[in-house]
């Protein structure tokens, strides 16, 4: 297929760099632009996702929307904002689940799904790739 090894190499490097860019893209915490919330601190956001905080600063109840285990956005979000690996996060939730104290937030498979739920519920908060943010969403926490 690749007659010219140089083109093949350039393509490969290009593809790899794209892949690299996607994996390391900035994940931001977002709410619907209809939400009154404008900004949240790192620990407020993390506490909401870890179930330690159930309300938004305006007193309304927070509805965190997670991404499923194994998704790049999830690993990036918890790695960057909570310094937790996938295993640490799993251990954290095992501690909550096996004491009957709660269940992890609802999880969706993609950022697109997360966006859909955010638009449907002004109390919802999620995290998505920055490149997917448009005027319907508001970034409340960026790296």
């Amino acid at each position: 297929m690749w007659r010219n090894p140089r083109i093949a190499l350039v393509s490969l490097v290009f593809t790899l760099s794209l892949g690299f860019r996607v994996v390391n893209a900035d994940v931001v915490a977002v709410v619907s632009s209809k939400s009154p919330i404008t900004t949240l601190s790192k620990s407020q956001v993390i506490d909401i996702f870890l179930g330690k905080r159930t309300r938004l600063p305006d007193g309304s109840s927070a509805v965190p929307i997670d991404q499923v285990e194994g998704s790049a956005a999830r690993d990036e979000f918890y790695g960057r904002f909570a310094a937790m690996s996938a295993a640490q996060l799993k251990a954290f939730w095992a501690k909550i689940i096996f004491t009957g104290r709660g269940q992890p937030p609802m999880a969706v498979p993609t950022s697109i799904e997360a966006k859909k739920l955010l638009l449907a519920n002004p109390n919802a908060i999620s995290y998505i790739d920055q490149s997917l943010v448009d005027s319907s969403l508001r970034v409340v926490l960026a790296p």
Partner: protein
Amino acid sequence: MPLCAVGAETADSTTEPSIFSFSAFGTVGEVHSSEDKADFTNSIFQTNGAGYSRSWSPEVDSLIGGQISARITPELSAVVQVIAEQNYDGTYTPHVEWANIKYQFTPDLNVRIGRVELPTFLFSDTRKVGYTYPWVRPPIEVYSLLPITASDGADFSYRANFGDVTNTTQGSDVQSDTQQPNNRASAIARDSVNISNTTEYKSLTFRVSYQHARLTITSLDGFLDTFNMFGPQGVAIADKYNSDSKIVVTEVIGASYDPGHWFVISEWAHARFNSFLGEDTAWYASGGYRVGKFTPYVTYAHESAASNSDPGLTLTGLPPALAGFAAGLNAALNTILEAIPDQSTISVGARWDFAKNVDLKMQFDHTRLGAGSDGTLINIQPGFQLGSTVNLFSATIDFVF
């Protein structure tokens, strides 16, 4: 590894909230002890351990548990957890560890009724879920002070946020009957009132807890009653060491700091049993560093008994026949008091998160027993040396799904 496959399949099922959710956890482990005249166990409620019963024992740490949670309404939920592990009688018949109904009055206040755990120590509510902590097992010097894991009654949990601080207060009023190995009488705890307060600020967790209960263990009553025939001094000894509805008071202070790439954890505990179980003060400090999937750690733990001996009955003035009998009683009493743990352990180990939802841990413990104590060891055999040192090697695989 088939367990990983199961984990991977069920993980995605959390996307659709349903009324019921099933979770499971388990540990497969082997422990070797250098001391062959006594057994190392994870809890005083186990009958066999590593050392005397078996040189390498899978019975100390291995267990499997399953849990069904039901979310009946947004406020009302129920949980049943069943565990199969080495029971007091050496069998592995599964038992109901917890079964309770929870009502969530507000997002921050809930009440549970049924069989619950007591959040005395930082890891006491998940001490059987190895995946939730860095070590092979929580330091036994501290965690053996309160070996009862499940109690029946009611508890509440109230959480409040102040800025970046989360404060959770838990309280309970419970009771428990726990069967002991070797046909010894059950440990019966009544009017057990517990209060604990956990404060979390960013990577810092701080917990204080207090427990007050009445504990009855009648297994030594026959023996201690014999002291009554020796007049007021004998009666005083019997009263001091029996455990007939004796007040047990426990205080615990614990803290952990875990910013992600490393952690330090320390807990201090004091328990006073007012009986042959004595009085103990214990603490540990542990630190670890996460390098990719590896978490090497080191722990130092110390437990000291207020006393491991008693002068017993005064022999002078007793008729020779009675004096010999009294000396025998004194010796037996002191053997019982030697079982009050007094020891220190230095542990080094590592946790390896080698696959999704599965870890492998290896740990080496070097324990020095107090001069007059069996430490936390059980099944003491003739020829066992008080004050000896014990080396343990443990390897476990923990999983959750």
